[in-house]
């Protein structure tokens, strides 16, 4: 190529050359614009790119389950509702508004519950189409497509079940795309949707017996029947509910464990009794730096409910009256609630620590002469506080009674010891004992009292480790041990009240009790709580009237009556803010 000295260029020649050059410059810009502007994301992928293999479609459904791995959703919303509202349990710390039924619509965890449940619903709604396409394209086998579709129906139905149970009617979103401005449906419409989703799931899911062991934790036909029956009960359709509960998918495949204490044991997760539980596993740090708060596999927060003296937390504790209410001989008592002078009965904890006395904090506290860790006999304490000095916590604001159902993971130490705070224990949402009690209620409702009594007895016999007390006619003798204030009691003879009492003693501190009480009808729950605790209009804690914790001081026990309308929770303010078509529940 010849070097051109520009100074030698003629004007004309220069012009021609420059214009030609300039035109040449313009060409690439005009020519490849279309490609130039079409960029693709390389950080995440479109649906087409995402679902080309069978396991990708499975992963899509896995993400629906993932929405439930949330402490705010499970504990601070469903568990709080199921238990704090019954006054069997109280909060210590930031959430004490629950103790006086003054929860407001800004309570943060309610938003998490609402949001996660709707995200799960939306993921299910999106999954239907994607699974169908994958099935058409041969990406998944028809059998797998059915199972995955069934799981999506199940999880959508279950989400609506807890939403409606907690808030009353909620918006029904059933399409893959929505602007999210749908107003609330009625509570009945939502439970009707639960029934319909569970019926779909019953057809599509696999039976528990057909589920490969590597897939344990997925929804099964039995679980779908369980939720369908419960939803039918909300609708007052007891006959239909009975049909669901009597399905052989339930009655053949699920059984009560022989020992009640094992139901909540760490080494009995996904047991023969469990219909559906939220799965957790250790995947990283078990301390604060892990993903414990929302979405992490790794962690559950059971030790938050242990006494402050052991865990450094003590964020929830029991009403002493719950302990007194257990009938003599009921093995469920110490497997549910422990207080001053009570030893832990968890086989797992005893095996690992030898009981309370094995925890590092107890041993070092005892060695240092800390009164808290010295038993009434002068030896190292092995009970949940001593009768002479109950464990009221660092600031003396707890009742001295704590949850034994959530004190099972032997790996945890709370904020003390090795500071293993977050565990991996599954959370059982529905188990066979509840199905039996639900069935008993259905039978009461449909006039089959002997059948109801038989179901009650089945559950109670296990609780008594063989045979439970019966009256002269052979009917279960249901009678609380003592009243909350230490008075003698009378047998409960009304069949419905007998069922409610069994719900309480079997299922308290799990994920059902208040739901079952509210389901029984308007005013039933408030009356039941009033009967148990003689509640009144006070809004502040009161000294406890009876027992080792009755020292005349305040130890965090409230006697507030359940106000009308507060048997459901407020729709989260955030949700109303984003969807003005939502109307708040009356009374909030």
């Amino acid at each position, binding site marked *: 190529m010849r070097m051109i000295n520009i*100074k*030698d260029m003629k004007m004309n020649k*220069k*012009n021609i050359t420059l214009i030609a050059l300039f035109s040449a410059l313009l060409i690439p*810009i005009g020519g490849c*614009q279309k490609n*130039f*502007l079409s*960029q*693709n994301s*390389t*950080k*995440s*992928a*479109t649906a087409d790119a995402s679902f080309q293999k069978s396991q990708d479609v*499975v*992963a899509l459904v896995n*993400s629906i*389950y*993932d929405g439930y791995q949330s402490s705010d959703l499970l504990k601070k919303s469903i568990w709080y509702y199921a238990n704090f509202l019954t006054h069997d349990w109280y909060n210590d*710390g930031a959430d004490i508004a629950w103790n*006086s039924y003054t929860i*407001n619509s*800004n309570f943060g965890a309610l938003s998490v519950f*609402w949001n996660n449940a709707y*995200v799960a*619903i*939306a*993921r299910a*709604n*999106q999954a239907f189409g994607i699974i169908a396409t994958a099935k058409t394209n041969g990406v998944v086998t028809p059998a797998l497509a059915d199972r995955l579709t069934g799981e999506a129906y199940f999880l959508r139905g279950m989400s609506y079940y807890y939403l409606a149970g907690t808030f009353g009617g909620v918006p029904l*979103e059933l399409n893959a795309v*929505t*602007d*999210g401005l*749908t107003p609330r449906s009625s509570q009945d419409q939502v439970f009707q949707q639960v029934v319909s989703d569970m019926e779909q799931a019953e057809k599509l899911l696999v039976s528990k017996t057909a589920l490969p*062991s*590597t*897939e*344990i*934790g997925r929804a099964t036909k039995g679980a779908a029947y369980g939720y369908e029956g419960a939803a039918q009960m909300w609708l007052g359709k007891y006959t239909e509910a009975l049909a669901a509960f009597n399905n052989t998918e339930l009655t053949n495949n699920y059984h009560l464990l022989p020992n009640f204490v094992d139901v909540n044991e760490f080494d009995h*997760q996904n047991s023969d009794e469990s219909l559906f539980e939220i*799965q957790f*596993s250790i995947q*990283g740090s078990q301390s604060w730096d*892990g*993903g414990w708060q929302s*979405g*992490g596999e790794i962690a559950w927060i059971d030790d938050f409910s242990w006494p402050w003296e052991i865990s450094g937390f003590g964020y929830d504790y029991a009403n002493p009256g719950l302990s007194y209410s257990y009938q003599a001989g009921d093995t469920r008592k110490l497997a549910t609630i422990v207080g001053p002078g009570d030893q832990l009965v968890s086989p*797992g904890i005893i095996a690992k620590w030898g009981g309370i006395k094995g925890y590092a904090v107890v041993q*070092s506290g005892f060695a240092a002469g800390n009164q808290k860790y010295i038993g009434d006999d002068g030896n190292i304490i092995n009970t949940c506080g001593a009768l002479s000095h109950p464990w009221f916590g660092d*600031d*003396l604001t707890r009742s001295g009674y704590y949850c034994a159902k959530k004190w099972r993971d032997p790996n945890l130490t709370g904020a003390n010891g*090795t500071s293993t705070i977050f565990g991996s224990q599954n959370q059982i949402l529905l188990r066979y004992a509840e199905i039996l009690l639900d069935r008993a209620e259905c039978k009461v409702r449909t006039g089959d009292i002997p059948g109801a009594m038989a179901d009650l007895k089945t559950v109670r016999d296990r609780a008594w480790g063989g045979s439970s007390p019966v009256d002269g006619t052979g009917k279960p003798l249901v009678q609380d041990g003592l009243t909350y204030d230490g008075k003698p009691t009378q047998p409960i003879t009304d069949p419905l009240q007998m069922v409610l009492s069994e719900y309480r003693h079997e299922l308290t501190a799990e994920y059902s009790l208040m739901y079952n009480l509210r389901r029984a009808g308007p005013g039933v729950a408030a009356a039941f709580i009033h009967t148990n605790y003689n509640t009144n*209009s006070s*809004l502040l804690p009161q000294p406890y009237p009876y027992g080792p914790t009755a020292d005349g001081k305040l130890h965090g026990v409230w006697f507030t009556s359940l106000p009308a309308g507060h048997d459901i929770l407020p729709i989260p303010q*955030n949700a109303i*803010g*984003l969807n003005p078509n939502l109307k*708040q529940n009356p009374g909030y």
Partner: protein
Amino acid sequence: MIRKLQIKNFVVVIGVSLSLMLLSFSGYAQNGTVTGTVTDAASGLPLPGVTVKVLNGPGTTISTDANGNYSIKAGPTSKLVFAFVGYTTQEVQVGNRNKVDVKLTEENKTLNELVVIGYGTAKRKDLTGSISSVSAATIAKVPVTTLDQALQGRAAGVQITNNDASPGGNVSVMIRGVGSLATNGNNPLYVVDGYPIESGGINSINPNDIASIDILKDASATAIYGIRAANGVVIITTKKGKKDGVQLSADGYTAFQTRPKEYKVLNGQQFATLALQQATADSAKQFTVLSNWNNPSSVTEADWQNAVYRPGLTQSYNVGLRGGNDKLQAATSIGYYNQKGIVLGSYFKRVTLNLNLDYQPVSWLKSSTSAKYAYQDSNNPFGTGSLGQLAQLPPTLDGGNKVTSQISDGNGNYGFFNPLYTYIAKYNNPVYNIENNRYSNINQFFLTNSSLEATIISGLKIKTNAGVTVTGANGYYSSPEDDRLVNQYGNQAGSTQNPFFSQYLNTSFDWLWENTISYDKTFGKHTINFVGGVSEQKLTSNGFSGSMRPANGTVQDLSHPYIDPTTGISTLILNSTGQEIGTLASQFARLGYNYDSRYYITGTIRRDGSSKFNASHQYGVFPSGSAMWKAKDEFFLKDVDWLTDLKFRGSYGEVGNQGAIPYFQYNALYSTGLPPGNSGNLGYPFGKTGGSNGIYQGGVAAIQPAYPGLKWETDYQTDVAMDAAFLHGDLTLTVEWFNRKSKDFLLNIAVPAQTGFATETQNLGSMSNKGWEFTVNYNHSVNRDFRFGAGLTLSFIQNKLISLTKGTNFITNTGGVGLAGNGWSTFTETNIGQPVGEFYGYKSLGIFTDAQLNAANTAAQAKGFPFYQQAATAPGDRYYADTNGDGHITADDQTSLGSPQPKFFGGLNLDASYKSWDFNVFFYGVYGNKILNYEESNLETFQNRGFVGIENISQEYYAKAWTSSNPSNEFARIYYNDNSIGNAYPSSHWIENGSFLKLKTLTVGYTLPADLIKKLAVSKIRIYVSTQNLFTITSYKGMDPEIGVQGSNATQTGVDNGTYPSSKYYTIGFNVTF
């Protein structure tokens, strides 16, 4: 060769002709000598050095002497031309006179200065659009770190706020109001030497290198930048070499910064006393104190503000060499800036290199090259949002570290709070963290741009311009293992804190290629100018960051994470590790026409294609038009002496905004989420039996919904203005009215969870900004020794949300800033019909008396509510208004509490010089805005916000808080569990008047006398002293009322959450020119 010949010939011909003419004229006018004096028309003082030239006469050229006198040979028909730099050239017919005195009028420099507009320049007097300009001289008056700080108060309609005073600056620039609610959605487009910056901070440009800043405000001016222009365009031109001679300059200053003001809080003794009082008063016995506090007079003081604040020091040096000849001009400079901040651990260092090279080998071809490099090293370990904590931390560490109860004992021991006492266990010692954690944040910025321009025929030019920007940001954070608590308190105090290490590396590469053609020509009274072109720009960004627990505190290598020996699980977590590409392809044109320099019209259009949008919505077309009438040049005003200039202009146009949204927001995208063990994972474990752990299966979920219709935001802008000049140009006035309507503004907004997503990027609604801008400048030379001037800018902007496309009537605060405390998730709400970011909360009616509380509860109970406010509300608690009238207090009673948007803001600049002295005073003020004093809400709560604990309070609150014996209607009772009563909810009690007037700068300079510096072979030496932030007139109770947009989001404006405080600077500096 041929061309060379032509030039040579031409020169010869001209030379010969001139010689001939000279000969002929000298023959003609040999008979006369004309003398006279040239004086300044304004001051009457003689002007030395004025060029006097004889036209159509002998052609001699001479200069006036020191007294302004001249003597020149000329005949009666000769015309004398008097020319002097800075003055209007005058021609005088000699006639019969032999003495001709002339008064020269100072030229109105402002009107003739060159203004840089998009893809060209124009004289200010010919502008049809709205452009504010700030000169190098103005920037030089204030020692600033970043150039945007220098613009504060200098340009009407441009609101510059120092959001905080951290080193390196945290400045928000808002041109003509808030158009977008998106984070970073209101940033203007910066164009540096013709290069629109897509990546890298504007604080990489050394203010000392800047020759001028031109701020394009109305659509007429900005439309040529199309989809990026809605927030205005700031055009930065750096200093170039001049054609004549060489100039070497050195500038430097040292600024001493005082410690900031401190909040007056309780000392350790008072704090312990208060805690004891609270414990005694707590009948429920729920609150206890640390045993050390039982004897308050014995506690060791921990003065956190004193420990963390310190005097600051800034040093800045710049050396520049600029010069050239007719063909080659070069400017190089080196800048060094080093600021030690007033908060422990904070600093900002910057080295900048700059080269501008202009080369014109032949008259028809020239090239221009600019290269800029900046290296920044900065750190701000304890900044805005954290600093409030200093006032809140319990002021004693007693009972914690058994080795020392001092904050730091100087031997490597740091006090800590007692880990077993719940109420303080969770606090950290910030001094320990600052001094023991390691940080590094390095930013590099390189911009180079070259153009080649050819003149084809007179007025017709073609130009190609190519450039690249390369940025790199890298750094790490590492904290050591900390086993101090466990060592002293055993396992009960928790476990050893593991070491932590995180590292990031973000790079970007951006290229630009533009080709333009322009034509400027005057035909008689008709002048046209045209520019058209095409442009492509492509930005590739790469990110890499990760964090882990290293095996020990020394390891700083992400490939060596700690791995759990039992599970084999690695602690490494990678975030945002990937590449993103964005592209922009554009065509644009501007055509201007004027008739007789009196009637002007300009039309501009740009078509932009952006990869941020779906193929069917990729292109936007942005037109604008403007007209201008120079009334002064009409016959009826031409001779009006007092009016130097008068023109009217108006424009209308459409411009776009796409800036604030990330790429690919139009697409439904699926992600596998983070690894298991993180909150952001999407998978789930299955196959778990008994006590086994289960097997994690991955998850995939949609992370954003499809929104194929997503498009850019369009701003529709109307501008009407008048420019006038009086007193021979001494006084200029610009009055401007604008109406900016931002439609389809973009926001990644929270959507109902029912959609399945937390947020979605939407074209959300429309916003209006209307306003008036006033600029007045006065400059007057009284005599040779004394000149003074004043400049005032005032801006009135009325901002309003007009509509939201769907769903709600309001938008709550969005973006990054979170305020801790019960009920504080929402603290602003932007409602339709109201300005952006209005504060939102409860209306405080004062403090409950016993009677008021009883009455309120009784009335509430009559309506069926258990109580009016809260279960635990007692006399002494804050009394909130039942604004919705339903009988009790709920979240629905929250209401608008005032707007953070000022009614007006402005700057007043006063300049004077007397002999060798120069003076500058600059005030900046805003009026009519409100501030949310969140920090005050912290100082009026004994309870820590967000968790169980207690914190320090202000002296004022301690003294004035409600007690039964000393009731107050302003300050609530002190209570360790405020969460249960909500006295510190967002309420009108925390809203304060945010108006202020600040003396930003006061400078006195002295230029050494010429005869002295001549001996030093220096042409000019100026030394100066300056002070910044000397005083602020305000009623605001907090540290500093200058609080702008927090978290770069307009819905969080004016929130004082413990910002990095400002303090006084005392600067001493010099400017030397060799």
